[in-house]
């Protein structure tokens, strides 16, 4: 009887360890940030890229920060299915998105906690150039935006 009890206890411990371990690795080690540049179609990159009048590419960026506010991971997307990313590892706990060039932030969202919530901002009326329709003075209500989030892929 004692052997049977010991075997059941071992089985329970093993299951508990596996479940706990899987849950931990599933939520902590597989994090990423998502950034989408929005224009005509806010849900899907449609191939149209944008730049400033001085020729700098405009892109959407989402950063992941650790609990100390240190930049931990980044994703950029250019609306033409071109995305560059760095891995989040397991420590990123907040995220924030931008519409920007290498030297300018046109808009910045607030920081959000991880877990599926989406943050968004838009640039307001600014002059941008489009890869399909030349340069426009984007008027009120006509602008570029970003939505991004931190996620567990």
């Amino acid at each position, binding site marked *: 009887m004692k*052997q*049977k009890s*010991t*075997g059941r206890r*071992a*089985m329970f411990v*093993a*299951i508990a360890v596996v479940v706990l371990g899987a849950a931990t*690795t*599933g939520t902590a080690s*597989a*994090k*990423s940030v*998502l950034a*989408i540049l*929005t*224009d005509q179609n*806010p*849900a899907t*990159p449609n191939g*149209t*890229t944008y730049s400033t*009048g*001085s*020729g*700098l*590419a405009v892109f959407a*960026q989402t*950063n992941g920060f*650790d609990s100390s*506010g*240190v930049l*931990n991971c980044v*994703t*950029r997307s*250019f609306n*033409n299915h*071109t*995305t*560059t990313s*760095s*891995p989040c*590892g397991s*420590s990123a706990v907040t995220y*924030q998105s*931008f519409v*920007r060039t290498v*030297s*300018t932030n046109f808009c*910045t969202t607030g*920081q959000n906690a991880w877990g599926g919530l989406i943050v968004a901002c838009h640039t307001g*009326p600014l*002059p941008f*150039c489009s890869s*399909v*329709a030349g*340069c*426009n*003075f*984007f008027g009120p209500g006509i602008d570029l935006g970003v939505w991004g989030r931190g996620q567990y892929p």
Partner: protein
Amino acid sequence: MTVAGTPPARTGKPVVLLSVLLTALLCALCMVGYTRLFLSSTDGRCSCTATDVSTSLAGQATRNESLTLALASITSAKQVEERFPVKDAEPSGARPASSPTFDGPAMSKEEIAAKEKADAHTLDLQLLSEQVDPIWASKVERATAEAMVRVGSSVRLDEVSCRETLCRAKVTHLDPKTHEADLDGLLSMPVIAGQAIAFAPSNDDRSTVLFFARKGMSLSVLQPSMQPPPPELISGADLIVR
């Protein structure tokens, strides 16, 4: 009852193994379901790209390594986000074949430099003309100094000055090799809650002057010209109505 006579099954080992396998299978199914459920609601291609890269190295980075990885990635991303063709651009600044093309009325280097100089001067004058909001200004100056430390040891904050709606930070880059990554780190500081713009006053990689607006405020140089656009440049394809 003797221990020696107990069959192996009584020790629970096969049951444990079976349990491990079943649990692992269950977890895998849950993760696949989660991924499909949440990622399919967004753009699949972009999220998958981000996911693939992030999971490949997930868990490797320590805190300091994470920062290095992030900044290194930003720097490597430079290939994709290089300036689109600019008049008089040098061959080294040409975009890679995979980057988007653009044939807009880009400015020459001289025009860009002149505009940046004028914009920096405009923001300098605006900063000097503002009253000081003592509470907000001191809070943001302190937060900027703290955030600058986190950007890394390759940048040194020489001065930060905030007034009512605007801040200016003067930064020296101690390592020209990390200039691009440092610039990204500056623009990614959590203290920046709105528009921001970085200038290189000496036209080299040794210093940066960063202006950033108070949350909810705009930088004057990032406001559109009041001149209406030429009608032939307006295209319905570029319009977004929110």
